[in-house]
């Protein structure tokens, strides 16, 4: 099914009006996806699904394939096998089904773009020509700035905002086309603990209120523990998915890594510690804290 609704024309109505009250079918279904890049198998038969309103953490250490997986879902990389289904039809220029917040965007301080301009680009930045200022467009942007709590710095240059403020603006930019699925690539990296917690709370609220499926990649799962409905844990190109209780366990993760790892709960945090004998065989995984950077 291809949704042909014009994102600009539809902005006059109430936000996110297509809230489904019933049992949700998966918004994102990843089936047996394998990806090889430059002869290296980055993803190996990865399968999982995310439903509307679910907050899903994509956890793995650096180089585990998190960004690759997100790029496959976006259609920027073709999987060598397997399939991806995003409900609501194909992700195209005209009907963006997927909202995306890329990894570490560098916004220079002298970039002549206000927070509200960047959110506006989320609406029609992919279209050719110059945008015509209109009441509808302005209201849609205002509403989205308000939804992420960015109204008070809407007129500031994006380059002058703090990391947490920039993430809110990026999230508003990603949501303004009313996608069913929101992908965020390491949005908590480089944020202080308080800002990270605020961004996580904001995302959890948006997922619940608007029945959006959120897939957020992180190398540290701890800031996500209070809100995560599902975790997809990537290691050695393979994935384990389920609730945190089902996945973040010594036996499940040991099977995933192919060697013994210990899951330790300490002071309300989760640590995944690799066994000492493993380090001798895999010097590139020298960091003993695989799940906690």
């Amino acid at each position, binding site marked *: 099914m291809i949704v042909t609704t014009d994102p600009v024309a539809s902005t006059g109505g109430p936000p996110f009006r297509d809230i489904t009250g019933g049992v949700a079918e998966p918004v994102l279904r990843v089936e047996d996806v394998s990806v090889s890049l430059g002869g290296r198998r980055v993803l190996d038969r990865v399968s999982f699904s995310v439903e509307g309103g679910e907050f899903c953490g994509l956890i793995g250490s650096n180089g585990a394939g998190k960004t690759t997986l997100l790029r496959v879902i*976006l259609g920027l990389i073709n999987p060598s096998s397997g399939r991806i289904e995003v409900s609501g039809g194909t992700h195209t220029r005209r009907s963006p089904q997927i909202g*995306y917040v*890329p990894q570490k*965007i560098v916004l*220079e301080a002298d970039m002549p*773009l206000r927070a509200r301009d960047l959110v506006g680009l989320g609406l029609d*930045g992919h279209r050719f*020509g110059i945008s015509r200022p209109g009441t509808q467009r302005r209201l849609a942007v205002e509403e989205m700035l308000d939804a992420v709590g960015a109204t008070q710095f809407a007129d*500031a240059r994006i380059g002058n905002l703090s990391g947490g403020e920039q993430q809110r603006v990026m999230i508003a930019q990603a949501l303004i086309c009313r996608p069913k699925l929101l992908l965020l690539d390491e949005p908590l990296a480089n944020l202080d603990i308080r800002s990270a917690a605020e961004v996580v709370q904001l995302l959890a609220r948006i997922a619940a209120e608007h029945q959006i499926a959120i897939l957020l990649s992180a190398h540290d799962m701890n800031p996500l523990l209070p809100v995560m409905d599902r975790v997809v844990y990537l290691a050695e190109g393979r994935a384990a998915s389920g609730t945190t209780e089902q996945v973040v366990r010594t036996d499940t993760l040991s099977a995933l890594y192919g060697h013994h790892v210990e899951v330790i709960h300490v002071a309300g945090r989760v640590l995944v510690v690799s066994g000492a004998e493993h380090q001798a065989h895999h010097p590139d995984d020298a960091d003993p804290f695989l799940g906690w950077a």
Partner: protein
Amino acid sequence: MLVALSWSSLFEPGFFSSEPVRVALVVGALAAVVSGIVGVFTVIRGQSFAGHALSDIGTAGGSAAVLVGASTLSGFVAFNVVAAGVMELIGIRKPRGRDLATGIVLGASLGLAALFLYEDTISSSTTGATVNVLFGSIFTLPPGITIPMVVLGIASVALIAVLYRPLLLSSVSYELAAARRVPVRLVGGGYLLALALAVSMSAITIGAILSTALLVGPAAIALRLATRTGVAIAVAATVGVLACWVGTLIAYDSTVWAGGNGWPVSFCIVAVIFVVYFASGVVSRLRTDRRRATTSDRGGVVQPFEVA
């Protein structure tokens, strides 16, 4: 005292009645408007080096045109457009690849420029060709040049207008634009073409070597003063036009002050841009200080999403 200067002493006799001055003012304004519009994107995209490379590459084109008896402008345009195409083909997606691609094309072209300028000086009776190509000579332009300048300007600005939003989006984030299915390579290539045309127009005005000054200078000034892309473009174009006009006036008047041999127009224009650039730095710093003083309590404002 500046106030005591009379109108007539500010504009030396013949400034407005002179045909070369009129052509200079029109050509300068056209080049400045286009350079201002394109230049804002050049600075945002961090492609000042590509702009500078194109202007140097234009040197080869201009000197080749002199050699075969074609117009300098056609030489600039031909070489710059081809060079922009080559830079796009070599690949300019990654900053490092972009640097390398630009450097390789630049080196090859400067070699050609050395050859052509040498041939120009030994074969041509007009010894001024080298200086004209490199540093411009806006007072010696033929009146007919305004028509091709207008055509080039419209082409360049039309390209930017069509590419405006995707260009801005891909300048913010290449990844984001690609994820939104923006044809990022096409957009980048189209922008490079607009840049090649703008640099050619600028090269005619203040010389191939100096043309980056008109491209990057007013844009850099605008980025210090404006918070919106559209406003930045308007400021850059205005500053560019004023710099060209004031520079032309100073150069014209200097012939009287210096007794016959005035300063080169290109020098005067670039000098004005340079002075305004520093002044804009002071203005933007004063503004930032004031903003900090008035919004320093932003941290105290209730955050809309409290941590649970």
